[in-house]
C-alpha cells in the first residue's frame, strides 16, 4: 500500500513537471531568466574571472572603460583625452603634456572607436588605439599597464571620425576626417566650400616594438564627409575602405542638402600602392603644426613635441590607387567580413543593405568598368561591384559585425534591433530588439580574420526606462546576447559610462597574463625621484620649491616642511617606494588648485601648489593604503612673502 501511494505521488509529481515544462517553454519566449538558465550564463562567481575583456569608448567622457563579459562588470576607466581626477591624469606635471595640442592644452576629448592591435590578421592584445573626434587625435593605450602612452594630433583633419582602425599587421592605424576643411586652413568664405575644401585620410605608421606612431602620409581627398572605415584583410589586405556622405559638398543644413544624391561612395584606397609611392619619394611635405605626445614608462613622464610638417599625397598623382564604389544613401558603417571579400555599406537612409565584392571590384578595375569620375577618381559601376543586398532588413542600418561562421549582425537605429543575416545568400536569419536605438555593436575579435564569437553586445543611444531613473540624464544601456546558437538570445542589460560609440573586445587570457603589477623602483628614472629616505630633500630655486618626497606604509618623508612663502610655486615630487601589487598612495594638500595624485608602486608623480595664504596646511594620503592610513599625513608651513623662516624638512623627530 505504501508503495502504491509513493508511486501515485511520483506520477503526480511527474505530471506536474510535465506541465511546468510547457509553462517554461512559454516563458522562455518572454525571456524568463530562471526558466532557461539565462542568469547562469552571465553569472561569474565571486572571485572568478570573466572570459572576455571589453573596451568600451566613453564618447564625450573622452575616456575608455574596461568591462568583463559575460558579467557586464566595469573594472576600470582609462583616462585618454580628458583630465581624470581619480588618478590625476592630465593634472600631474608628468601627464599634462599628454593633453597638449597645436591649440594649446585641451582638458577634454570625444573618444569614439577603440581598435586592438593585430598580428597576421588576428587580435594580439598589445595595444589599443582610439580616436578623438573633436580636436583630431589618435591615442595608443598599452595593455600591459592599461595606461595611455601616446597621443598624436592629426593635422588637416576635422571631426576625426572614420578612425582609428588598424591594418592586419598593425602597419597603420588609420584616421579619416569626417568634416572636410580648407587645407591648409585659411580665412575664406564658407559658401566657397564646394571644390575648395578637402578631406584628409591619414595613414599613421605604428613602429612594431613600442607602437610609436608617426604620420606616414595624408591622402587629400575631395571635400566629402568620410564617415567610417575598415581595413581589407586576407585577400583584400593592402586596401582600406571608407564610407562617404555629403558627396553633394553642402555646407549648410546637411540633413537635407547632403541627402540629395541617390548614391554616395565607399572610397577604396590601395594603401600599399601609395606606401610604395611615398617610399620612393612621392608626395609633398607641407607645413603643418601638430603635437606628438609620448609617455615614457621609465621616467614616468610625458613629453610633447610640436611637429612642423606632414607628407600629403594627391590621389590623382598615384593612378590606380583610389576608386569610388557607389553605395546608396549616405552610408554610415563600412565593415569588411573576416575573409576580406565582402565590404558592407549601411546606407542610413536606405531600406536595403549594400554588400560589395572585393573580387568583383578588382575585376571592374581591371576591365575599366567605370561610371565617370569625381575629381579625377574613377567611379566603378555599381552593378559591377555589387555582391548582393539584404532586402528590407530593418530601418536605419548603421554597423555590421561578423561571427566568423558566415553570419553578419547589423544594427538598426530606427527600428531598435540587431538583425542576423547570412553572407552570400543575404537572407535574414533572426532579429532581436535592443533597448533602445542601437548604435554600434561588438563581437569579441571583431575587425579581424578570426572573430571569437560566443557573445555580441549592442550599445544603445537611448535608455529611458531600462534602469532606476536618475533624473533627466541617464547612462546609456548595453545588451549582451548569446550568439552561439542559430537565434540570438538576450542575456544581460548593463549600464555603460559616458557615450559608448564602438567597443573592442577579446578573450581575456592573453591580456591577463601580461598585465603589469608594479613599476620597478630600481628602473625609475624620473628626474625628481627619491628612491629612499636618504634621497628626500627640499630645494629652493628662486620662488620655485622642489620637494623630493617618498611614501611608504604609512608615512610621507618628509612630513614636516617649513620655510615656504606665499607666492612660491611648490612642486611635490612624490615617489611611491612600495613594490607590492595594488598598493598605490595618494597625495593632496589643502587648497591645491588641481586634483590629487594617485601614485602607483615604483612611480614618481608631481603636483604643483601655489599657496596664497599664510598658515600651517596639512597634506595626506588619499588612498586607503594600510592599517595606519589615517596616520599618513604631514604639515607644510607657509610664511609671509617677506619672512625669514629657513627652509627645513624632517620626518620622525621627537618620537615619544
Amino acid at each position: 500500500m505504501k508503495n502504491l501511494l509513493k508511486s501515485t505521488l511520483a506520477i503526480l509529481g511527474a505530471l506536474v513537471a510535465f506541465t511546468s515544462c510547457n509553462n517554461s517553454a512559454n516563458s522562455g519566449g518572454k525571456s524568463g531568466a530562471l526558466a532557461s538558465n539565462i542568469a547562469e550564463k552571465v553569472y561569474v562567481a565571486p572571485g572568478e574571472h570573466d572570459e572576455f575583456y571589453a573596451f568600451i569608448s566613453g564618447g564625450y567622457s573622452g575616456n575608455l572603460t574596461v568591462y568583463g563579459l559575460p558579467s557586464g562588470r566595469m573594472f576600470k576607466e582609462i583616462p585618454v583625452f580628458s583630465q581624470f581626477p581619480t588618478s590625476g591624469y592630465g593634472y600631474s606635471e608628468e601627464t599634462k603634456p599628454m593633453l597638449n595640442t597645436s591649440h594649446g592644452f585641451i582638458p577634454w576629448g570625444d573618444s569614439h572607436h577603440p581598435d586592438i592591435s593585430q598580428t597576421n590578421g588576428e587580435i594580439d592584445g598589445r595595444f589599443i588605439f582610439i580616436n578623438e573626434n573633436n580636436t583630431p587625435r589618435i591615442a595608443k593605450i598599452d595593455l600591459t599597464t592599461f595606461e595611455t602612452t601616446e597621443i598624436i594630433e592629426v593635422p588637416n583633419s576635422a571631426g576625426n571620425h572614420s578612425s582609428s582602425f588598424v591594418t592586419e599587421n598593425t602597419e597603420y592605424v588609420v584616421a579619416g576626417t569626417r568634416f572636410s576643411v580648407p587645407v591648409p586652413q585659411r580665412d575664406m568664405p564658407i559658401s566657397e566650400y564646394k571644390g575648395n575644401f578637402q578631406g584628409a585620410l591619414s595613414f599613421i605608421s605604428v613602429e612594431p616594438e613600442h607602437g610609436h606612431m608617426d604620420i606616414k602620409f595624408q591622402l587629400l581627398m575631395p571635400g566629402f564627409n568620410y564617415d567610417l572605415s575598415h581595413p581589407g584583410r586576407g585577400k583584400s589586405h593592402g586596401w582600406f575602405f571608407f564610407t562617404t556622405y555629403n558627396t553633394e559638398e553642402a555646407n549648410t543644413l546637411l540633413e537635407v542638402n547632403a541627402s540629395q544624391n541617390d548614391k554616395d561612395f565607399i572610397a577604396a584606397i590601395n594603401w600599399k600602392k601609395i606606401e610604395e609611392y611615398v617610399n620612393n619619394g612621392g608626395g609633398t611635405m607641407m607645413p603643418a603644426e601638430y603635437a606628438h605626445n609620448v609617455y615614457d614608462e621609465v621616467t614616468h613622464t610625458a613629453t610633447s613635441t610640436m611637429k612642423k610638417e606632414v607628407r600629403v599625397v594627391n590621389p590623382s598623382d598615384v593612378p590606380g590607387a583610389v576608386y569610388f564604389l557607389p553605395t546608396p544613401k549616405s552610408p554610415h558603417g563600412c565593415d569588411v567580413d573576416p575573409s576580406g571579400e565582402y565590404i558592407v555599406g549601411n546606407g542610413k537612409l536606405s531600406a536595403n543593405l549594400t554588400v560589395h565584392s572585393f573580387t568583383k571590384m578588382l575585376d571592374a578595375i581591371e576591365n575599366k568598368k567605370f561610371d565617370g569620375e569625381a575629381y579625377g577618381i574613377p567611379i566603378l559601376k555599381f552593378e559591377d561591384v555589387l555582391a548582393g543586398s539584404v532586402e528590407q532588413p530593418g530601418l536605419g542600418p548603421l554597423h555590421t559585425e561578423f561571427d566568423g561562421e558566415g553570419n553578419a549582425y547589423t544594427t538598426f537605429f530606427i527600428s531598435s534591433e540587431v538583425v542576423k543575416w547570412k553572407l552570400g545568400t543575404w537572407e535574414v536569419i533572426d532579429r532581436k530588439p535592443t533597448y533602445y536605438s542601437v548604435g554600434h555593436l561588438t563581437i569579441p575579435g571583431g575587425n579581424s580574420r578570426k572573430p571569437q564569437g560566443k557573445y555580441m553586445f549592442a550599445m544603445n543611444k537611448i535608455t529611458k526606462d531600462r534602469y532606476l531613473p536618475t533624473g533627466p540624464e541617464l547612462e546609456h544601456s548595453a545588451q549582451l546576447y548569446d550568439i552561439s546558437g542559430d537565434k540570438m538570445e538576450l542575456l544581460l542589460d548593463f549600464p555603460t559610462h559616458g557615450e559608448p560609440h564602438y567597443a573592442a573586445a577579446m578573450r581575456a587570457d592573453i591580456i591577463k597574463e601580461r598585465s603589469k603589477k608594479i613599476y620597478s623602483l630600481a628602473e625609475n628614472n624620473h628626474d625628481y625621484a627619491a628612491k629612499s629616505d636618504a634621497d628626500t630633500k627640499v630645494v629652493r630655486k628662486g620662488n620655485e620649491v622642489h620637494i623630493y618626497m617618498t611614501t611608504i606604509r604609512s608615512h610621507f618623508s618628509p612630513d614636516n616642511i617649513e620655510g615656504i612663502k606665499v607666492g612660491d610655486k611648490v612642486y611635490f615630487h612624490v615617489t611611491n617606494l612600495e613594490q607590492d601589487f595594488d598598493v598605490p598612495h595618494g597625495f593632496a594638500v589643502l587648497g591645491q588648485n588641481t586634483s590629487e595624485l594617485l601614485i602607483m608602486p615604483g612611480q614618481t608623480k608631481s603636483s604643483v601648489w601655489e599657496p596664497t595664504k599664510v598658515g600651517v596646511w596639512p597634506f595626506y594620503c588619499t588612498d586607503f593604503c594600510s592599517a595606519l592610513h589615517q596616520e599618513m599625513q604631514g604639515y607644510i608651513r607657509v610664511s609671509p612673502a617677506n619672512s625669514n623662516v629657513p627652509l627645513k624638512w624632517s620626518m620622525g623627530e621627537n618620537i615619544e
Partner: protein
Amino acid sequence: MKTIKLMFLVFAIAVFVSSCKNETKDASTTSTVTTTENKPAERTGQAFIEDDESKPTVLNIAMGSKDHTTLVAAVQAAQLENALVNAGPLMVFAPTNNAFAALPDGTVEDLLKPENKDALANILKYHVTPGNYSKDFLKKFKKLGQANNQYVKVEVIDGEPIIGGAKILASIKAGNGIVHVVDKVLLPPTE
C-alpha cells in the same frame, strides 16, 4: 507491486525525454556551473595570490629562510599566514632557529600543541609592529606598540637599537613592510 515501480520508472523516463527543447539545450550549462561552484573553496585569502613581480611579503621572506624554520612552523601552527601578507605595514622581528633553541627545554614543543594556539599567537604577535622602519630609524624610538597590544622597550646600546633585549642581526625589506632578524625570542611581559 513491482510492476508499479516499473511503471513509475517508465513514466519518469518518458517525462525526461519529452521535456521541452529549452531545457535539454540548457542541460550542458547547468553542469558547467556546478563545477565552477566548487572552485572558490580552494582559495583562502591573499596569501595564495600568485605574484612573482611584487617584492616578497614578510611571510615569503620568513618561509624562504633556512634560519627561520621554527618561526614558520609557529606561524603556521597559529594560522597567522594571511595576516602576514596583509597591506600592513608590518615590521616583523624574526627570531632565528638558534634563538628558539635557546629557550628552556620543551618550551617550543609545548607552544606548538593545539591547545596552546592562543598563547603561541600572543607571543608571535608580540614580534610584530604595525609600521615599517629601518634599523637606524628604530634608534629614535623608546618603545614600540606591538600587535598583541603590549609594548616592547627600545634601547640604544653601543649605537645599536636593542629591541626587548634582542639584537638586530639583519634587516630585509619586504613588499608589505620589513623583517628584522633578531637573536632572541621576545617574551611578552606578564602582569
